[in-house]
């Protein structure tokens, strides 16, 4: 039996009903695909923001316990100069490593001479910042000047609070590694927007050597590793951890994903919204297919009786109707895919921008293609479409042939 031919012709024959079902499947598929594409773009943007914008790199190497006991005894949990000289070559020789750069974080007070406020500072090598940023456009970190060893960059809101702008001077007061107060005058060389209202009034970037001077420690708190591809992150973590342990270092390697709580929170939120939308759309689409196929099976009861009397097995009847439902899903999804591509093209070329919640930056509304999610949606719609046809068809196939033949 040519099930596809019969299925396709019945879809055409019942064109009004088929159209409603196809629209339902198509719009359902498109709405899921578009939302999946949107959140994929958001995830991709957030990942770039974390790795290149927030300068997290792909991996952060630190001594085991830095983030717990290290608060109380920082010197024990930071890399000394000698340790850095041994650890950094191991990280640099890894085939996928593009950059290894030291970091030092510290906090204290920043003063404009008349007023002061707290800051959270990060010491980094100015030349490496550019490499870490890559082609990331949005300015989430300041441009430090390699030729100005006391040049710092302040987050915009921090500068606004203290009325500090590039070209001004300020004073930083911090505790050294041994707990003593240490103050230095600095120049404001740049300002930047962290993209987060919670940090935009606190962050301050400074040259790594300045941070070392302020903290009075000739070493680094942690090392940032930039890989040539995000996809190697987990593999690099595993392999580098093993190599460093073999070299006698009790270290832990954190991925950008683990350190960017913002990314994880947004992803969790969007995943929940996606699951909610997905299940709602799914119910509507499946109900539509159930309705369409139930009517089709009832209308074709006599045909079922005829085919059964001619020797078609019950399984053949099931195949006949599940094939038709599958074709409805395939055609609907094909239409939905076309609609997705058109809407994506329109949205991406419209230049729509918006300010996300808890953000101080305007971002573009763009839609990606999330092919794996679209494929999963298609498979699930197909399976449920087939199930939607299976049950009424099974009831009809089990019906007594003489009753089916006598059906009006």
């Amino acid at each position, binding site marked *: *039996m*040519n099930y596809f*031919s*019969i299925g396709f*012709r*019945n879809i*055409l*024959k019942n064109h009004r009903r088929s159209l409603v079902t196809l629209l339902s499947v198509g719009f359902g598929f498109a709405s899921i695909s578009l939302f999946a594409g949107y959140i994929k773009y958001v995830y991709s943007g957030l990942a770039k923001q974390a790795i290149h914008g927030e300068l997290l790199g792909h991996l952060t190497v630190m001594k085991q316990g830095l983030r717990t006991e290290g608060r109380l005894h920082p010197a024990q949990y930071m890399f000394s100069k000698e340790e850095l000289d041994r650890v950094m070559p191991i990280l640099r020789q890894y085939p996928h490593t593009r950059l290894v750069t030291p970091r030092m974080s510290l906090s204290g007070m920043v003063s404009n001479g008349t007023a002061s406020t707290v800051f959270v500072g990060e010491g980094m090598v100015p030349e490496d910042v550019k490499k870490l940023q890559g082609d990331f456009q949005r300015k989430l970190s300041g441009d430090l000047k390699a030729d100005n060893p006391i040049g710092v960059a302040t987050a915009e809101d921090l500068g606004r609070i203290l009325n500090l702008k590039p070209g001004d001077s300020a004073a930083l007061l911090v505790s050294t590694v041994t707990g003593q107060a240490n103050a230095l005058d600095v120049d404001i060389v740049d300002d930047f927007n962290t993209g987060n209202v919670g940090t935009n009034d606190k962050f301050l970037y400074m040259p790594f050597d300045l941070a070392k001077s302020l903290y009075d420690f000739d070493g680094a708190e942690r090392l940032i590793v930039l890989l040539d591809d995000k996809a190697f992150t987990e593999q690099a973590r595993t392999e580098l951890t093993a190599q460093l342990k073999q070299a006698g270092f009790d270290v832990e390697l954190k991925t950008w994903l683990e350190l960017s709580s913002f990314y994880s929170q947004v992803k969790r939120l969007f995943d929940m919204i996606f699951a909610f939308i997905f299940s709602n759309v799914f119910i509507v689409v499946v109900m539509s297919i159930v309705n369409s196929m139930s009517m089709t099976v009832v209308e074709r009861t*006599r*045909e079922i*009786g*005829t*085919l*059964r*009397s*001619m*020797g*078609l*097995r*019950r399984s*053949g009847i099931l195949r006949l109707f599940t094939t038709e439902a599958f074709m409805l899903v395939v055609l609907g999804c094909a239409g939905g895919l076309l609609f997705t591509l058109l809407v994506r093209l329109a949205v991406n070329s419209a230049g729509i921008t918006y300010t996300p919640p808890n953000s101080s930056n305007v971002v573009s509304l763009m839609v990606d293609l999330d092919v794996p999610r679209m494929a999963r949606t298609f498979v699930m719609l197909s399976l449920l479409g087939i199930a939607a046809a299976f049950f009424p068809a099974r009831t009809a196939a089990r019906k*007594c*042939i*003489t009753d089916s*033949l006598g059906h009006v």
Partner: protein
Amino acid sequence: MANLEGTAASTANEDVLLSLNDIRRDYVLGETRVEALKGVSLRIHRGEFVAIWGPSGSGKSSLMNILGLVDAPTSGEVSLEGTPIAQLTDNALSDLRSRKVGFVFQSFNLIPVLSALENVMVPLQIQGVGTAEVRERASQALKDVGLENQASARPDKMSGGQRQRVAIARALVTSPSIVVADEPTANLDSENSYMVVKLMRELNRSKRVTFIFTTHDPRLMDLVDRKLLLKDGLLQADEAVR
């Protein structure tokens, strides 16, 4: 008068195609039990052209359903070519119908979305015959009923007589042992009725296929070998016509 098996056809036992022994068929309608067949015994021989006639409600359709293996009797035994039917699973019974039984229905029961040729191809496709052979045999079957020029026509573009001829081609395309036709002329005018039964008769002779059909039309009785009168669920007469 319930047991009249083989009275008209004195054919040898080995020619018995279909055998019914003390067939009863009851239906339950609400709280009422209706006895449609009250103990029918019957032997149909290979190559016979048999008409079953009788008033409405006499049990003709119930008997045809059992003869066509699409219904099981409440009691009694049915054998096709010596094979007892009662023991067969649903799949085995489906396969047996596919190979041995052709059907012609009162309302033609053609699949509306398929052309005449495609409708005739369906029984062969159910059997899993290869595509080229299916097309060739279906074309020949359509030619046998004189509809080779209507191969691509859809049922809704054909007259009642043409549709029934397509149905006959469909019933014969698998070269079945028996063709069961329940009121095949009920939806046709008298001219087409005669033409259709005449065609069935010709095919019965040329292909040696057994035909059993029900009818109310006394004119058609002249064309048959044997006629069975069914009344009140009992076989009242079994006569050889010629």
